């Protein structure tokens, strides 16, 4: 059974669907901002909204917004020089970069790549390099693109095109030249910009039949352990794929992982889709260096929790509806923001 953790929880109804949520990294120590990708079904408008969060007195106020041409499928935020960058991809295949003032989160400018340039219509996923201007985009259509963002211009090139034979559902930078992608059948691929033409390494999920029938929804790679790729997806599965031990993934959670090699008695924090995974930024000092670092997940069955190798999972939030995305504040790792299926946002402050 999962352990329940104490935390202060605030829910803010938004009266529109939240596709994804991120904290916006800013320079100011006093202001906290969240970025929401919203879909208003009444007016048929999709937008990126910036809200300011104040814990005392409690408020979550709308600051500014930008209207997106179509629903947002993926959103990432980062900081570069004196600006905060929000990168988003839409379901029609376009890509947009918004630049915000890094003290008051005012939206300053926007550059975009129109639809059908990078991706065909369908779901695509992006990752923005930490503190950089390099963005990788992958899509259902099997294309992998690299986009370099300048102040007012964009450069992009196609790294690979599977022609739809393989679809990619998630991506994450590992280093300035390497990244990992995830897809159907729990396929994980490792790519190197310097070696185009195909993945440099593939994770074969063949050893487990259940795992093979899932989809990877999210990947995370810790900057201090670039050889380990953390992936989460269907059937509550969360696994760590170590490039140095290719055939033996470490299962951290999952119903389909009963008899994986060396993974006896793995507890499952969720039984359904794990929509997002991130290494927990708030790490206890006694974490062993040989173990996989603790990770936070959110799932379709309404769980927001932390899992750690060989430990009981910790439940931070158990909602009656799905938790579709979350983000850990990089400056205050105790604060977590998540988006709930029932048109609201929750902010947790862990004790």
């Amino acid at each position, binding site marked *: 059974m999962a352990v329940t953790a104490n935390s202060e929880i605030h829910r803010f109804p938004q009266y529109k669907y939240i596709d994804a949520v991120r904290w916006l990294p800013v320079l100011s120590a006093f202001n906290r901002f969240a970025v929401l990708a919203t879909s208003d079904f009444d007016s048929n408008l999709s937008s990126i909204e910036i809200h300011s969060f104040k814990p005392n007195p409690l408020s979550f106020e709308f600051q500014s917004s930008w209207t997106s041409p179509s629903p947002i499928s993926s959103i990432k935020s980062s900081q570069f020089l004196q600006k905060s960058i929000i990168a988003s991809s839409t379901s029609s295949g376009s890509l947009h970069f918004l630049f915000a003032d890094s003290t008051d989160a005012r939206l300053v400018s926007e550059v975009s790549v129109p639809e059908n340039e990078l991706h065909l219509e369908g779901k695509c996923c992006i990752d923005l390099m930490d503190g950089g201007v390099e963005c990788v985009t992958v899509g259902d259509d099997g294309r992998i693109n690299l986009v370099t963002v300048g102040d007012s211009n964009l450069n992009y090139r196609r790294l690979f095109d599977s022609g739809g034979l393989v679809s990619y559902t998630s991506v994450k930078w590992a280093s300035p030249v390497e990244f990992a992608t995830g897809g159907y059948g729990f396929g994980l691929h490792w790519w190197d910009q310097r070696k185009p033409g*195909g993945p440099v390494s593939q994770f074969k999920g063949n050893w487990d039949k259940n795992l093979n029938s899932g989809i990877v929804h999210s990947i995370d790679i810790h900057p201090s352990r670039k050889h380990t790729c953390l992936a989460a997806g269907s059937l509550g599965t969360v696994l760590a794929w170590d490039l140095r031990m290719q055939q033996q993934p470490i299962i951290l959670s999952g119903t389909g992982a009963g008899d994986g090699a060396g993974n006896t008695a793995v507890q499952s924090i969720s039984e*359904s889709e794990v929509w997002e995974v991130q290494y927990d930024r708030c790490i206890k000092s006694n974490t062993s260096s040989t173990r996989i670092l603790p990770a936070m997940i959110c799932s379709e069955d309404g769980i927001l929790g932390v899992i750690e190798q060989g430990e009981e999972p910790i439940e931070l939030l158990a909602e009656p509806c799905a938790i579709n995305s979350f983000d850990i504040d990089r400056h205050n790792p105790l604060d977590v923001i998540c988006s709930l299926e*029932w048109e609201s946002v929750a902010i947790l402050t862990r004790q």
Partner: protein
Amino acid sequence: MSPNTVDNGTLIPFSGETNNDSLAIYPLHHTLTRPVSRLAISWSRGNSLRVSLFAEPSQTSDAGDGAKVIEVKLGGGDPEIDDADWRRIAYGSVAPFALLQSRRSAISNMSKSPSTYQLDWWEHVLQYSKEITSLLAGPKLGPSPIIDDPNEIVKKNEEPTCLKAAWELMEIFYVDKQSQAWLPERLVDWLADYDSLFTSTQETIHGKLVDFQNDLVNIQVIEDDPRYWEVMSSALSVGWLDIVVKMLRLHGSYQLDQLSNRELENGLVEAVAVLISKMPRLRPESAAGNLGECFKSKPDFIKAWEKWRSQITKLDCSPFWIQCDNQQTRVGLRNLLQVMLGNTESLCTASCYWVELYISHFLYIRPFMIGVESMYNLAQKCIQLKPPTGTHRLTGLLIGILGENTEVVLAEISREFGPWMVAHAVELLTAGSEQAEILLYDERYNLGGISMVELHRLAYAQVLSSHALTWQIAPIYLTSCMKQGMGLLENLLYRQSVQHNNMLLKNIEICRLYELDHISSNIMKVAGVYHWKHGRKGAGVFWLQQSQDTNCLDRIAQQLFDSVGKSISDESFKQWEGLIELLGSESKPAGGLEFLHKYRDFKKSLQMVYSGKSTDAARQAVGSLILLMKNPSTPQRFWLPLLFDSLKLLNWKDSPLLSVSETNLLLNKLQEFSLARQRPHFTEPNLPPQALSSIRLALATNLGRAILDE
């Protein structure tokens, strides 16, 4: 123009004369310059209609738009709660509803005797009702100021809504058995909270108070204003003691500079204020700080009541009144005493409409009354005394409840508050009486064999299903419907779009929860074909594999093979690796795609043969080749290229690699292929012209060597 449509979409005139209230007219604002010739109407999202208007064809080319599509939202919706807020209520009521349903089934499984079931069931329903009530609370009107405004008479914490008022009214009458003994007092509280809602249709005490409060700054000598006394007697008649006492203390005689020469007058005002604040009430406890003395047991209350009344009578007969020289104060205060003494005439003038009069009767004329039947008669009497000028959505409900007519109550809430209310309030109705339970749970022939409860739940589920954001909670209500629920649930799940993976996975998750494997398998099949058609071959194959649809996979395979690289040297085969990886182990159904797997294995070992010269690798390659040729899923058009690629194996120098039977198998295949060549529509593989003969030669040589070897 008010067009009406018939089947073929032509317009017929509509006469506006049939002035029927049940007809709602929605004007369409289109910008077509030419007259409309045809209409097409279809359902859009929710309760919107999509109307396509086609203009008459014009001769000139620049006559503006030829057609226009307009969405018309039907029904005005609830004026006090907008769509987004209804969704918030819908989301929030899921958990309490589901909990109550699971408790119901747990209890009915545990004990069959209805007596224990009835015993504490209402407590569960009460908990459910409280949770729903907290959900219906309107927006908070900011934090209350720290310093009390002396001129603020009416305090507001939140904006009241009719929906919440109706819900609480039902809770008071049907659910809360514990406070049944002080039901009138609960109604007093109810009116105090919701009197302002009635302001929309008639004058109310609340409205009068607010008006007076707004004028307060302009009034010089408050006790000379007749409205001051009028408003106080009104507030007292419905038991708003705090307000009355607070207003009395605004009396001019309390001012320091006047205290000395108006001592007697001030004494009388204070005496009345004290009496008001000591009014005995039959209730457990009032909200913190509220005036009045509360008594839990009836005998104590009766004793206190008689004592209090005698004190009032004593004050009323006091000689001090004659000495009081301020006439306004004297008349006003004595009128307040008359209200407290239960003077029918005073009460009737003090109250604005029948519900207020009704409440004042409970407080001052029949403080000991309990029993719904006498309450109904009293209500009838009050309606006669103050005939309503219009109907309010809450009064209809109140009369229905007092008349103990479940069907009327159901009809009222259905008409006034919509499907959400009926589906959820049924639980309150049935907690109240066995009779209502029988009425609502009885399966009815005229409803197609379902009960009224089920009917209303289905209707609500239908509303939920029609919106993209709420359809996911409809299954919770559908599965609580024994007869028709599952069928409609299957329909609902089939109807969802498979376009977006997230939506699809949420859909499949619901199937998993309710063990509807056959549906999820069908949905995955649809998704597979969808992705396939949109060029996402990998995703298509994945979903078809998930749905175990080998038929479809076979068909797909034939199309796929057209684009597979056919020769060993073909680089394009590399990109198939990902897809083959996806196909996974052989235990999974891949249909005709199994070929790809074997083909890949064959190619790999053949590549090893070409790079090195190991006989082991060659033997492995031969094994793969035989497997491929034996397998019925290997398409015929691949036979020749496969054999051509294997020429090196067939001509292996060291020793023959194929046995006699294996060579015979390949020869047979070659024969079969040659026959197939004669048929029409045969497409010749792209190979050198001497390919067939060189294969034949190699096979014959190999056969000879193999026979010698054996």
